[in-house]
Each structure stands twice: as structure tokens, then as C-alpha cells.
């Protein structure tokens, strides 16, 4: 007879845990079993499941759309996707409301009133394309570069670039300067790629500078999963330097608040301690870098913790402790996003932070700081040739290192007559809302028909920018179109697709179809030599040309494989029970590490030469680097080494070595001055999601965050109206008083405060009626009355003279109690003041008068003239 009482039971139970865990199990959570399938609760029938790549934001999660009776009823993660592993964020889950949005534009529209007046006429596609073709033809005769394309989020797989190049124009500008360009430029010349892919899952220490990676930064879904695994299962320590207590900072082992713009100084000081205490990986530095350990030690002597502490407010002992922890914990990795990079000299900050992973030898190690793994796809042939002439706006001579362009300065340069524009195309872009100066700057540009004589918007909705267009060509939503995808958002490369889940609503057309039809209208008989580059039947045909010839994928079924699975991982497949990549036998496949150490074959080496630095060259290209008698592929730089010293920077009078420049106007902050930042909600992208009801309900207002101490000085508490005033404008919003922000900083979330973009974004009824009928519970639940305030109108343009980035976090403001004339939601800026700020920031360009003053260490530089002669 067993003796069963609570005490013996507990003992038995504790002792039996291991055996119980080893026993076979047949009961699993339904959500795992049902991944990729869904049942209609009313019909009890399995819903049609169509895999695709999400495109609410740019993380590119694997998704599945469930369709019932022709209607998209649900979205969830694709359990076959190697990066996102069946998880889809809130934005992705809400994605179908983009498609069914009652404010969508479903037909071509032609402006009939003044720009921005809101008067439109519906026209046929034939009429629309004929009108645009006529304008393009006239512009083309004058100068192809007067035809401009500016895009926000181009995931067409090359169609946008093909279009503008077909027209012979080089005036194509992206949105990257308001996004992450100085992060890219901080990294590219140093190690080749413009982004890192840390192995968070296997790391032991994560040093995070200015990234809210758990919820909003680039690749937040796949990275948040792996950071969670790293922290929870691998006991990694997560340390976050940020001005704001973001949810990532809140989930970190340590949040260390820094004064905005000083992360770079902190990183350099951490490097100083590592090198001073000989904690660096000497072998790695001396083998793979173009600067020796000895040189590096000498260079870093100047960056003392005391110096950095004074600048950043981070205590000396904290800097020293973190330095020791980071260097002595293996493996470890750094990570950054906009925090360090979105400043004047953001490129220096990015470089300073990545140096920590380099000097500790954590590069391309399991658990370390890895190169991105992406996959390419083909472009349909033939391709149009490159344009004959460069474009001022697309390759500005004052910013030669800003490879990702300086698009946020476009209005000023057009207004100054630097480049004539006749026809302006825009695609998935909304700078009137998303750029510095917002309506005060971009609104003025688009309203002026002398500056922009003809403006074509390819858009899905009438947002702040499209409201000012002359003609709107209605684009498909992402659930209605074909697009190729590949993102380095994990260590397992993959190719994926977006495919139409339903037929496009109304008369909307896929972007590449719009562009093809336009080219066919411009060059109907092919006599202009343009039509031949647009030879495809439809979106699917274009994609077949991109995917059906890729080795291995071709054997797996090419595009047909992707239509069925959504994603093609080149290694094995995802095991939904473990979340690991497995081969056909179920055995886990580890990610590859040490990509730079892949050895060149004898065939590769045939005809190659090796120079004094070990760089292996063939046919004029650097193909590898010789180390210890072995021939490795090395890194993607000009000499296949990690370039701690970037010679090209020196050419333009910038410091080629890791360095830091304090924002000049932050040096003498007055007592009543704060540095304004912006941050992103986890449920919103910059401008496109305020019209999505599920997301708008979660986040719709954006008070200014103020530190408790700061708020006490001003005499405000949470909910009080405050006036936030910069040199270029002011806004009135509410205060949110918290300990979770640096006392000399304040921040306002983006994504709110729309004045266009549909009835839900603007929370007014414009010229239309209420939201809809009374049957819709979602609509009945529109309970909020606050749409928030948009901060960009009071943020002036700042350009990192190296990377071209907008300095989003450099604006000095005064926050005061709102006055009697201040009204919640006021947001005003002044074109003249913004223009003056733009001129001021150009003084920091290598051609500007402040450049040399900011770089006394580059006294031997020959000046801008020497570069031009060169």
C-alpha cells in the first residue's frame, strides 16, 4: 500500500521531475499543432491558408493569410519561416484592415481644385496614364533628370529603380536619410555590409546602444525572440544605454541613461578601458584589421572614462565595470539602432560602438557580432543602362560619403534652384508627415507649382503628401501584390515572396504593372528603346523570371515552391517544436560562423596576386586576404580587412579613426533647455498605421515624456498641457511625467497627430460621414478622442556630414506650461526658420566653413579644394 499524503507526495513529485520530463508526450498545445491552419468558428471548415511575407513594416515577417468565402479573416505567423518562426507582431495581425480600409483610393484621381484643396475627379487608367506620359515625355525632352522618383519603402524587387533608369533619369531618392543611413555608413567602410546580425540566441552579453529592439527597432520580431532565448535560456546579460526607459531598457538587466548624442563617447571610453587593461583580442585585431593593437591602444588613450562621463552623465565606475564585463564575457555582442546614429556625426557614433565587438574579437563568432546573411534573386533581362548624367539631388556633391543620399534636404535644394524638377513621382512615401519640418517644409514644396510643376503619387490612400498631388495612381495593398523578399533578419538566409491573397480591390494595380503600363504608354511602339525592359505579362511572370533560375530553389520548384511555402530557407527547414533549423532527419543545423574565414579555392587563386598587406586581387578586384599562409575571403571592404582606419574619410577631412564629436549646440545647454527626441510605438510604423483600427485603439496619443525632476522645475504634472518650442516652431501637447527619461531630455512618439490619411487617423469626419454602420463592433468601440500631436514640424533638418542622416535627436527645445492662447494639438513651423537651419547644417559638410573647426586633429588635410582636384 502506498502512503499518499501531501508531504510524501511533494517529495515524490520533486524527485520524479526528470523522469516525468523524459516520458513520451502526446498532448501538445493546440496553437502549435494548428500553426499554419485555421478553422472557421461558424462554418467549422478549414480556411484557405496562403503564405506570404508581411509588409506592414520592414521586418518582413513570414505570415499566413486565412481566407474564408473570399475574405481575408485572419493573419498569423508562418510556422515555416526560419527567421520569424510563426510569430507575427500586432501590426502584422492587423494587416488586413489596410486592404479593406474604407479610406482606400481605388481609382485614378485627378486634382481639379488648388493643390491640397481636396477636390478630385475620378478618371480612367487610360486617361491617367496618357496624361502622365505626356508630362514625362515633355520632361524627358528637356532633361531626363528633371523626372524625379522619391520612394519610401520600395520592396518591389527592383521595379522602381528599373522604371526611373528606363527613363534615363538618375534622380531617384530614397527615404534612408531619415531612417538609418548613418548607421549604414558607420559600418560599411569598416567591414563591408551596412548592418549586423548578432547571434543573440547564443550570446552571453548584449551591449545595446539606443535600440528598442524588443519592440520597435529593425528586425524586432526575430531579434526579440532570440534575445529572449539568449537571456532566458542562455543567461545572457542585457545592458541598454538609452535616454529613455523603453520596453527594451525596462527588460534589460541594466538601463543606463545617457545624455542624447553621447553614446559614441561612452563606447569609446569602454574601448579605452578594454585596451588599457589589455582585455582586447589582440590576435583578432592584428590578423583581421588594418590597424594594429598597438596603434589602437595609442589612439584610444584620449577617450578616458572621466572624459566620457562628463559628456554623457554615465558614472566613471559604470563605464569601467561595463567594459570589463563586456570584454571578459564570451561570447558577447553589441547592437545599435537609431540612438547613436541619428545625430550630427552619427556615423562616428556607430563606428565607435561596433569597435567594441571588433576589439574583443567577437566578430563572426557563435554568440557574437555577425555579418548579415541574405540571399539575392535575379532581375529580368534585359536591364536598362545606367543614366548618362548624375543628379544633384541623388548624389549631392557636398556629401560624397553619404551613399544612401540626403533626401530630407530635397525641398531646400529644389527651392534654391540646385536642380530643376518637372515631374515628381512618389511611391509609398509621405515626407510631408515623416520628414523634419513636415508640413512647414515639404507642404510648402508640394504646394508650389513652380517648384514641382507636376506631381504624381502612386499611393493606396490620401495621406499628407498625396493630398497635395496632381494625380493619384492607386497602388495595391501588400496582400494583393507580388513581390520578392529576402532580409538578413536571422543567421539562416531565406528567400520569400508576397503573393496576392485576394484580387486587388477596385481598380488598383500592382506597382510594377502601373510602371509597365506607363512605360508602354510613353514608348508604345518601342522606338524610344524603353519598352523592351518591361516585357512581362503580370506580377507573377516577373517573379518567375526572378526566382525560377536560382540554383537549388529551381530544383525545389522555383516560384511554385514559394507560392506553397512562402519562404525558402537554403538550409533544411524549421522544426516547429523546437524553433531550430533541422535537416530531413530532424537533426539541428547550426548556423555557419566565421564567414570571413572561408578559404579561396585553387581556381579562385588562379591568376590572383597578393599585395604587401595580404590583399588578394584578381581582375582588378580584391577577392580575399592572405593570413598565416592561408587565403581567406575576408571582409567586404576594398582590401578585405576590417578597416578601423577608413582612408576615404580622411580624404574629405574627417577623422578616419574611431572618434566622437559633441553636438556643438549641446555644449552649453541652459537650465530650461532640453534635447528633444522621438520614439516609436510597437504598434505603429512612422506614418501608415494610424488608420488601422486595432492599432489606433492601442496607441493614439503621444504626450511628451518629461523627467520628474524636470517637470517639477517647470511646474507640470502628467496630463498638463505644455508648450514645446524649438528654434523653428512650437507645438502644444500633454506632459507625461516619469523617472524613465534622462532629466535633460524629452521625447514624443511618432505615428500620431495626422491631419490627412483617413477618418480614423485624423479622428474627424472631414467632408464625409461617420465611420460606418452600427453592426460593426469594432467601429462602435472607437472610444478615443485624442489623435495626438505630430512633432516633426518643430524638428529642423540636421545632416550628418559623413553618413547623411537626419539628426532626429539633436533638437534643443524649451518646455513650458501652456499659455492661455495655446491649444492642444497646435503644431506650427516656419519655412524661413527651417531653411535657415538647413543652411546652418550645411556648414558642417566637408565643403562648409565649420568642418575644419570641428576637426582640429585633421590639420594636415588639404581642404575641400584638394579633393576636387583629386
Amino acid at each position, binding site marked *: 500500500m502506498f502512503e499518499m499524503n501531501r508531504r510524501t507526495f511533494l517529495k515524490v513529485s520533486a524527485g520524479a521531475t526528470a523522469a516525468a520530463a523524459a516520458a513520451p508526450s502526446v498532448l501538445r498545445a493546440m496553437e502549435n499543432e494548428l500553426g499554419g491552419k485555421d478553422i472557421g468558428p461558424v462554418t467549422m471548415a478549414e480556411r484557405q491558408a496562403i503564405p506570404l511575407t508581411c509588409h506592414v513594416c520592414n521586418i518582413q515577417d513570414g505570415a499566413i493569410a486565412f481566407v474564408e468565402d473570399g475574405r481575408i479573416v485572419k493573419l498569423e505567423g508562418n510556422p515555416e519561416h526560419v527567421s520569424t518562426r510563426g510569430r507575427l507582431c500586432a501590426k502584422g495581425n492587423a494587416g488586413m484592415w489596410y486592404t479593406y480600409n474604407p479610406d482606400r*483610393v481605388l481609382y485614378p484621381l485627378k486634382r481639379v481644385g488648388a493643390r491640397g484643396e481636396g477636390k478630385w475627379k475620378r478618371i480612367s487608367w487610360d486617361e491617367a496614364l496618357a496624361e502622365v506620359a505626356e508630362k514625362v515625355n515633355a520632361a524627358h525632352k528637356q532633361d531626363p533628370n528633371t523626372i524625379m522618383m522619391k520612394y519610401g519603402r520600395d520592396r518591389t524587387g527592383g521595379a522602381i529603380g528599373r522604371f526611373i533608369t528606363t527613363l534615363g533619369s538618375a534622380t531617384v531618392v530614397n527615404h534612408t536619410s531619415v531612417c538609418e543611413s548613418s548607421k549604414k555608413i558607420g559600418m560599411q567602410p569598416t567591414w563591408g555590409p551596412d548592418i549586423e546580425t548578432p547571434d543573440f540566441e547564443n550570446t552571453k552579453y548584449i551591449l545595446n546602444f539606443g535600440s528598442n529592439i524588443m519592440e520597435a527597432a529593425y528586425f524586432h520580431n526575430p531579434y526579440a525572440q532570440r534575445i529572449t532565448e539568449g537571456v532566458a535560456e542562455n543567461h545572457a546579460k542585457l545592458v541598454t544605454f538609452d535616454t529613455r526607459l523603453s520596453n527594451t531598457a525596462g527588460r534589460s538587466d541594466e538601463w543606463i541613461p545617457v545624455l542624447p548624442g553621447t553614446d559614441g563617447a561612452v563606447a569609446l571610453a569602454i574601448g579605452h578601458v578594454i585596451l588599457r587593461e589589455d582585455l582586447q583580442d589582440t590576435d583578432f585585431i592584428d590578423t583581421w584589421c588594418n590597424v594594429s593593437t598597438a596603434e589602437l591602444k595609442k589612439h584610444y588613450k584620449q577617450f578616458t572614462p572621466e572624459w566620457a562621463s562628463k559628456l554623457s552623465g554615465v558614472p566613471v565606475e559604470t563605464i569601467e565595470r561595463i567594459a570589463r564585463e563586456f570584454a571578459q564575457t564570451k561570447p558577447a555582442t553589441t547592437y545599435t539602432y537609431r540612438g547613436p546614429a541619428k545625430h550630427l556625426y552619427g556615423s562616428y557614433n556607430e563606428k565607435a560602438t561596433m569597435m567594441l565587438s571588433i576589439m574583443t574579437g567577437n566578430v563572426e563568432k557563435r554568440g557574437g557580432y555577425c555579418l548579415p546573411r541574405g540571399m539575392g534573386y535575379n532581375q529580368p533581362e534585359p536591364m536598362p543602362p545606367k543614366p548618362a548624367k548624375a543628379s544633384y539631388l541623388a548624389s549631392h556633391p557636398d556629401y560624397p560619403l553619404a551613399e544612401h543620399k540626403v533626401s530630407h534636404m530635397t525641398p531646400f535644394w529644389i527651392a534654391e534652384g540646385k536642380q530643376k524638377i518637372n515631374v515628381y513621382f512618389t511611391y509609398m512615401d509621405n515626407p510631408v508627415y515623416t520628414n523634419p519640418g513636415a508640413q512647414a517644409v515639404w507642404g510648402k514644396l508640394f504646394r508650389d507649382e513652380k517648384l514641382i510643376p507636376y506631381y504624381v503619387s502612386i499611393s493606396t490612400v490620401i495621406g499628407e503628401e498625396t493630398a497635395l498631388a496632381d494625380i493619384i495612381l492607386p497602388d495595391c495593398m501588400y496582400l494583393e501584390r507580388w513581390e520578392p523578399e529576402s532580409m538578413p533578419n536571422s543567421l539562416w538566409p531565406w528567400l520569400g515572396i508576397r503573393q496576392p491573397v485576394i484580387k486587388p480591390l477596385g481598380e488598383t494595380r500592382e506597382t510594377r504593372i502601373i510602371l509597365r503600363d506607363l512605360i508602354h504608354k510613353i514608348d508604345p511602339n518601342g522606338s524610344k528603346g524603353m519598352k523592351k525592359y518591361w516585357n512581362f505579362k503580370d506580377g507573377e511572370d516577373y517573379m518567375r523570371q526572378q526566382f525560377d533560375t536560382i540554383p537549388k530553389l529551381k530544383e525545389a520548384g522555383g516560384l511554385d515552391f514559394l507560392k506553397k511555402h512562402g519562404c525558402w530557407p537554403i538550409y533544411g527547414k524549421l522544426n516547429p517544436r523546437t524553433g531550430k533549423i533541422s535537416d530531413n532527419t530532424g537533426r539541428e543545423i547550426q548556423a555557419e560562423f566565421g564567414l570571413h574565414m572561408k578559404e579561396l579555392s585553387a581556381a579562385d587563386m588562379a591568376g590572383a596576386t597578393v599585395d604587401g598587406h595580404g590583399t588578394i586581387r584578381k581582375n582588378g578586384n580584391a577577392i580575399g586576404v592572405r593570413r598565416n599562409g592561408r587565403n581567406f575571403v575576408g571582409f567586404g571592404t576594398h582590401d578585405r580587412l576590417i578597416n578601423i582606419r577608413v582612408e576615404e574619410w580622411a580624404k574629405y577631412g574627417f577623422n578616419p579613426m574611431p572618434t566622437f564629436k559633441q553636438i556643438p549646440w549641446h555644449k552649453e545647454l541652459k537650465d530650461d533647455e532640453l534635447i528633444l527626441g522621438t520614439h516609436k510605438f510597437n504598434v505603429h510604423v512612422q506614418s501608415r498605421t494610424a488608420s488601422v483600427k486595432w492599432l489606433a485603439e492601442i496607441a493614439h496619443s503621444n504626450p511628451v515624456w518629461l523627467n520628474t525632476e524636470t517637470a517639477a522645475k517647470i511646474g507640470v504634472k502628467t496630463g498638463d498641457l505644455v508648450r514645446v518650442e524649438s528654434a523653428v516652431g512650437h507645438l502644444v501637447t500633454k506632459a507625461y511625467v516619469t523617472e524613465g527619461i534622462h532629466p535633460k531630455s524629452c521625447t514624443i512618439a511618432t505615428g500620431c497627430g495626422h491631419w490627412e490619411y483617413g477618418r480614423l487617423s485624423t479622428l474627424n469626419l472631414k467632408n464625409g460621414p461617420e465611420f460606418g454602420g452600427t453592426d460593426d463592433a469594432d467601429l462602435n468601440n472607437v472610444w478615443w478622442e485624442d489623435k495626438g500631436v505630430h512633432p516633426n514640424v518643430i524638428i529642423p533638418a540636421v545632416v550628418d556630414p559623413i553618413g547623411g542622416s537626419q539628426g532626429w535627436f539633436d533638437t534643443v527645445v524649451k518646455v513650458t506650461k501652456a499659455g492661455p492662447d495655446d491649444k492642444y494639438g497646435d503644431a506650427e513651423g516656419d519655412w524661413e526658420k527651417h531653411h535657415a537651419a538647413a543652411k546652418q547644417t550645411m556648414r558642417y559638410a566637408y565643403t562648409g566653413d565649420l568642418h575644419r573647426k570641428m576637426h582640429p586633429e585633421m590639420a594636415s588635410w588639404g581642404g575641400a579644394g584638394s579633393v576636387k582636384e583629386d
Partner: protein
Amino acid sequence: MTTAVLEGVINAEAELSDGELVAECKARANIYRILSGAFLEEPTAEYLQAIRSPEVMASLRGLGAAFGPDFTDAPIGQLQEELAQEYAVLFVVTGGCPAVESIRLYGRFQQQSFFEVRKIYQQAGFKVSGGRFMVFDDQLGAELMYVAAMLDRAAVALAGGNRSDYVETIKSIKRFWALHLGKWVRGYASLLGRATEYSFYREIAKLLGSFAEWELGLLGVRVDDVDGGKLKVPLAEIEYESDSNEPVCNACEKGQPGKGKSAADQLAIDISLIEERLQRKK
């Protein structure tokens, strides 16, 4: 014409001969088509000329329509242009009020009603195609045109002595009103009449509302209009939790206990702009 007057007409003509019923079906189909033409797409010059013909104007006046000089006196070309712009503002551009059942009842395009009406059309041997622009199956113009076609069919059946087909066809029209048109067009008509700045759409909206009432009475269909065409969105009486320390929502007055507006203020979202437009018209 008011609803009361129309009801009088129904009562007076409750008992009609087959010949009279055939004529009535045809007359009703014509009204459906006139209304359909106003919603399917921007009015063409031919359509406007036809409406402005003395005979049609007299008929419409007889029904109570009172078009203003902006419709009756403007040159056709100008009128067509102005109405095309008004059509875009009302039915096409962001922030308008598309005449689409899915939007009115579900707040988004291509929802349940779209698929339901498509199935009904298919069962009756129709599909939506043609026209200058693509039209949703549950667009008001398409729904009205379907009923017009069914009335034609009923008239043919009756004229051919096929009474059972006639009865079945009328039943399917009744079902269509009960399941679709009856649920939204009266409220929508009321809203449209107030939202437009042109007498053409205002009178068409009035005609639509009155005609809907009349048809429902004639068909003996009792169905609540769930669109309502209300300017103000009723807020659900929901309880929600708020955390004053929550940065996402704490800026909302309503998110803070005891700081909310009055109960009356909480009943609606800001509609000042449309109210302004309506005031301006007065």
C-alpha cells in the same frame, strides 16, 4: 414626396390588374434605374440630359423632387464636370462615404454583404461587369440595378401569364430588400442628403429615401435600417481600464479616472468639420 403621401399611394393602388401590375413593375424598374445611374458612376452628359428632359423632370417633380438651379440651369458640360467632382468627394476619395453596403454595415470594403449579393446575382444569372469603372457588387448602383432587372423579369413573367415565376421573382426582391437594401439605404439616403453640396445628389438622396420607404411598404417588408446615417457615432457603453502611469493612453482625458468629459460629450467623436459644412449650407 413624404413617406405618408407614398403610403397613401400604396393603399390606393393595393388591388391592381395584371396589366396594371406589369406597368407598375416597369415604372418601378425605371425609378430603380434612374437611382442606380446616379450612384454607379459619375453622371454622363446623356444621363443628365435625360434627367433634365421635360418629361422626366415633370415625373420627378411629381414624386416631390425639387432640383435647384445649380442642376436645372447649368450648362450640361459644366454640370457634368461639377457633379463628377462632387461624386469623387462623396464616394471615391479618402474621407468620403462610399455607397457600398460593406462599408456602411461593416466599416470596410468587400465584407460579408459583398459575397452575399454576388451569390444572389449569380443565382439569378447575373454578374457585375462593364461600366466605366470597376464597381463592387454591393455598391448601391449595382444593388438597385439588380432589383430593376428582377422587376423587368417579373413584368415579363406576368405579361406571359407565368404567375408563379412572377411571384417567385417578387419574393426574391423582397428577400433582397430584407437582407440588403432595407438594412442601409434609408439611413444612407438621409446622410447623403445632408452631406452633399449639390441639389442633384440632395434630391436623388431624398428620392432614394422616400422610394425605399415606399418599396418596403409595397413589398410588405419590415426591416430596421441599421445604417442610420447618423452624423454622430454612438460610443459603445464599454468599460475600459486605464493606468495613469501608462504612457500610451494617459494623454486621453478619458483614460484618467475622474478627468473625463461630461457624459454628453462622451457620446460622440469630433464631428465639427462636417457640422461646419452643414451649417454653412444652411
